């Protein structure tokens, strides 16, 4: 059976997905990157392999996410794509008429505007923590709740408290304050969901025309409290796709399929790379006063790729150039 692999390597989580014929998702897996992307990729591939039926053959692979180049080099990806395009492709694949994608992941949040199946505008927030999943995780933890339970609780609230959500630090101290005032967990949870949504709409989605169908994806989309808060604020239905947490990986797999159908053969190295010994070395280049931190990746005694140089002195390597093409 022909299948395509997509990997979304982010700084917080790394997601995998295998796409089979008729767009069936044959396997998927999410794990924490925990500052060690190489281990994450190897572990993820091992897991994925276990999930797959014996006859499945990976005919193409793609990577996305902030660590897409590393992932791409490790697995020999056929396509290495930015996470905005990957998410947009996946959303349009799920719901062809989609016009708005709200995406909140662990490390960043974005909004993607599509018209007639094409991405026409986007915005991405990587600076402010208050609009991301990590922030929500932290607050749930502070309240002593699991993230699922926390979303459920929010749905039960009748009188949400207003929590200042302009920035992570404010929101956190304000929440503690409201807790001390004796508000119920339900009301605080819901207040927090509303604060996150308000913050998202005012910062990330500022000035964008949010038209239905609206898709809500990313790890945070599992939280039903947030979904509800979005629906209240937008006064429209918000759809959470089935594979909301791995949409980036889905997009990468779809793109890999496209690329391979064009170039007819795949450069995927196979699942055995999970046994390879990848080494990443960083060194400061002394070629000029920029002293770039150059990253070099080797495996099997070969340099697979270099990056991080501003001038191309180290990265002007045929493999990397092919990946970037």
């Amino acid at each position: 059976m022909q299948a395509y692999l997509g990997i979304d390597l982010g700084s917080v989580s790394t997601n995998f997905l295998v796409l089979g014929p008729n767009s069936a998702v044959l396997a998927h897996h999410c794990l924490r990157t925990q500052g060690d992307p190489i281990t994450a990729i190897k572990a993820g591939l091992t897991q994925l392999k276990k999930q797959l039926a014996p006859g499945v053959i990976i005919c193409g692979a793609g990577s996305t996410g902030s660590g897409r180049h590393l992932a791409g080099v490790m697995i020999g990806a056929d396509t290495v794509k930015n996470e905005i395009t990957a998410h947009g492709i996946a959303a349009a694949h799920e719901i062809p008429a989609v016009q708005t994608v709200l995406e909140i992941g662990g490390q960043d949040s974005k909004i993607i505007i599509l018209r007639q199946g094409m991405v026409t505008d986007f915005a991405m927030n990587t600076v402010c923590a208050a609009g991301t999943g990590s922030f929500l995780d932290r607050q749930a933890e502070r309240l002593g709740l699991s993230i699922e339970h926390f979303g459920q609780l929010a749905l039960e609230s009748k009188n949400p408290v207003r929590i200042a959500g302009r920035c992570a630090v404010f929101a956190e101290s304000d929440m503690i304050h409201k807790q001390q005032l004796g508000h119920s967990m339900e009301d605080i949870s819901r207040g927090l969901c509303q604060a996150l949504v308000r913050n998202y709409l005012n910062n990330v989605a500022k000035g964008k025309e949010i038209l239905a169908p609206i898709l809500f994806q990313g790890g945070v989309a599992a939280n039903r409290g947030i979904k509800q808060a979005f629906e209240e604020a937008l006064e429209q239905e918000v759809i959470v796709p089935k594979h909301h947490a791995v949409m980036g990986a889905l997009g990468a797999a779809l793109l890999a399929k496209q690329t391979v159908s064009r170039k007819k053969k795949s450069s995927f190295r196979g699942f055995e790379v999970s046994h390879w010994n990848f080494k990443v070395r960083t060194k400061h280049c002394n070629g000029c006063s920029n002293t770039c931190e150059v990253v070099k990746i080797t495996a099997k005694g070969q340099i697979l790729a270099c990056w991080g140089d501003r001038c191309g002195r180290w990265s002007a390597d045929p493999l990397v150039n092919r990946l970037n093409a």
Partner: protein
Amino acid sequence: MLVKIGIPRALLYYHYFPLWECFWGHLGLEVITSPPTDKSVLDRGVIAAAPETCLPVKVYYGHVLALAKAVDYLFVPRIISAQKGTYICPKFMGLPNMIKHSGYDLPPLISPTLDTNRGKKSWQRAHIQAAQGLGYNKKKALTAWRYANYRLRLYREKLQQKRTPLEFLNHDHSLPRSFTSPTILLLGHPYNLFDEFTNMNLIRQLYQYGYQIITPEMLSPVIIEREATQLPKHLFWSLGRTILGTAFHCLKNSPVVGVIHLTSFGCGPDSLVGELLERRVNKLSNLPFLLLTLDEHTGEGGLITRLEAFLDMIEWRRSS
């Protein structure tokens, strides 16, 4: 030994360096420029400048410090206006004072006030007075000014042949020139567009991705001004006028495939102009529009992700 005058490679350097180099050079001074921005220049600037100031001013500080030990005088003009009825940016007005009182050990500053609102010949007068202040006679200074003006005109004419200041100021001829690749309209202040360190080689990257660019410097100021006067409200910031005028002209007359607005974090004028610009782009066309904001913390990753997504948008549209 020749007297050395230092010109920081920052802010309006990208528009006026040929003028200043020729003027001081003709008078017999040795003109020294700071090296292109690099990490140490930026780091020093960030430490030296007030934290709330915009990135380009911080970079300017870095260049001033890079020159401080190497020159006898520092040329830090107080640029108020280059066109009647407009102003460059309030930050430029106070710059010489801020630098002087920054607490660093600096050579004496030469800071003529350049303000076209005080009369057409204000720039000429101020330069000549500055030269007289250094002991040169008026006649010689006037001759130098005339040469310098001529040089400036040549420089601008060359830029209008679709060339970038990088070619003339950094002597960098490695940028391929193409007349057939799709064109991206690249808007922003010259010190954002042409400082390859702070903008992470944006222009080079666009060329590598197979695009060519058009910037405000490539159009005649007459055309830009004609378009800018059609703004519903008179815009005082000349850099903003230039950006909007360029956009209007190009959206109506050139086959551009996308628009990038490169701004700096903490820039007041940019946030105003940016909104006007985005609205106009959406009204006059339905081209993909990308706002890129630079600050000292800008990670290259985020910038490239946005750029790639933007270029995908263009590709998508072109292929459908």
